[in-house]
């Protein structure tokens, strides 16, 4: 997660994916950020949209960083952390750059769609052209900006593409309300599954409650 390690504080220095998410989230909403890392995104959402935020993170050192930002942060595993919440207890549940590290993706998304009225998902696109080239020409597991780890030390458990995620939403009857594809800071609309490093989706369950 190289994006995560970039220090993105100060107004002009907000990460591009965080800016998109901040545009999507409505003011004063309640937000649960699953795998919130150092809390930069929640901090941005509180400052810009005065959301009531709750973070969940497994890494102890990140907990201290979140607490220093004044965030509500729970130390724990995303896969065990959702079931306690009542249905629709948050306006948004966010899984930004954490989905690829979760074992049971399907179950977590399903539960996120239960707990949150809307769910925001952000993930590295495995079919990014540089990754394709590294596999095709180099015959090696891709290592690049959005997939910064060697195969033997990656925390990523799943490698999926923007097209995969479209298929997934179709098969699970998940409504895609918004989508943005990024290559660094640039928005990509032309063949995003090839040219985007990152996919961002605002989704909701088809059943309206």
């Amino acid at each position, binding site marked *: 997660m190289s994006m995560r390690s970039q220090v993105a504080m100060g107004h002009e220095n907000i990460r591009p994916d965080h800016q998109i998410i901040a545009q999507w989230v409505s003011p004063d909403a309640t937000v649960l950020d699953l795998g919130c890392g150092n809390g930069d995104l929640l901090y941005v959402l509180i400052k810009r949209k005065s959301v*009531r935020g709750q973070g969940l993170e497994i890494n102890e050192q990140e907990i201290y960083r979140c*607490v220093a930002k004044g*965030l*509500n*942060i*729970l*130390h*724990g595993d995303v896969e065990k952390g959702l079931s306690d*919440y009542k249905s629709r207890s948050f306006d948004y549940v966010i899984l930004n750059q954490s989905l690829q590290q979760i074992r049971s993706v399907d179950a977590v998304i399903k539960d996120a769609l239960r707990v949150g009225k809307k769910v925001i998902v952000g993930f590295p696109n495995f079919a990014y052209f540089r990754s394709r080239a590294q596999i095709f020409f180099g015959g090696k597991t891709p290592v690049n900006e959005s997939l910064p780890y060697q195969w033997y030390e990656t925390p990523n458990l799943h490698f999926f593409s923007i097209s995969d995620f479209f298929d997934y939403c179709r098969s699970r009857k998940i409504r895609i309300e918004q989508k943005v594809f990024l290559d660094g800071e640039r928005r990509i609309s032309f063949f995003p599954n090839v040219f985007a490093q990152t996919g961002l989706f605002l989704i909701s369950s088809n059943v309206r409650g």
Partner: protein
Amino acid sequence: MTGVTEAILQRDLGIVQTAYFKIPRVLLENGETLESVTMAYETYGQLDEDRANAILVLHAFSGDAHAAGYHEGDKDPGWWNVLIGPGKAFDTDKYFVICSNVLGGCKGSTGPASIDPKSGKRYALDFPQITIGDMVECQRQLIDHLGIGRLLSVVGGSMGGMQVLSWLVKYPDRVRSAIPIATTAKHSPQQIAFNEAGRQAIMADPDWRLGNYYDGNPPAKGLSVARMIGHITYMSDVSMTEKFGRQKKTNLPVTKFRADFEVEGYLRYRGDSFVRRFDANSYLYITKAMDLFDAFDGKPIQEAFGNVSAKVLVIAFKSDWLYPAYQSQEIVRACKIAGVETSYCEVHSTYGHDAFLLEVDEETHLIEHFLKKVFYEYAVTGGYGA
């Protein structure tokens, strides 16, 4: 977070004194009443004009009102001096910190060793079985007496954490935030078992004499063994290995059951010194109060914290096997279900249960920022915010 410890140890409160507050009558949870109850307490820092900066610190099983600073002539400071004082986690330049000895204790507050005003004799086993809730009720009266409407925070580790939870449930409108540390909503059978072994050690001592030992020798051997059991449960396998190893105390040949190993000597020393500062009957009453405690009051977890509006910071420690992290996570679960704004950290530590007294840097970081946030929110909402 290195260097915090050295920096904060340089500043202390200096000389502090214990004060006493008399409550004419306390109605206990079991329906009985206690007349003329004394509460020993200490305060540090200044109460601000809004009376909004008060923090109540709740001590663990064998603690007392002397949480920080030094008593005249003492070499050692109060039991949480590393966290309470100018510039520390509980910054006495900013906050007004209160700590009282629990009801049932033996450090200045009314307990089984106190004189029963009805009989003119010591209570001994005529003392009623008090509860964690009764301790909190007495603290509430002390807070009233000090003119404080709503506490900025209630905080405590171990049994202190149980009192924190009891405050949350009994007086949700009186607390703006709560910090339960290394604690549980209710004792597991294992925790009750360790307490029972301690109680049995005391009661098996012939000097105990059904609690009527105040005019003779106290049940020193029994109380000492009880404390040894306690100390084993407060440490961890790793912390014992680091502290003692299999180190021998002397090079002398082994004789029959002298304290050959360092760890044996340590336990004997801890047991013996405890006897000089603690009352055996208080041990019985307070451990029983802990065993009986159930923060959820038998209610399903879904209803437990329904009225809680405080912000909560729960802290657990990895190697704590007496109050394991799963028990703190159960408290977090209740908070999540109730929609309470909660933070939780399971601090990496090898100290076992003792960690809550020893992991100063991590606790300071968590508590300092948490309190700052709560205090700031109070300031910007003019005191009307949750």
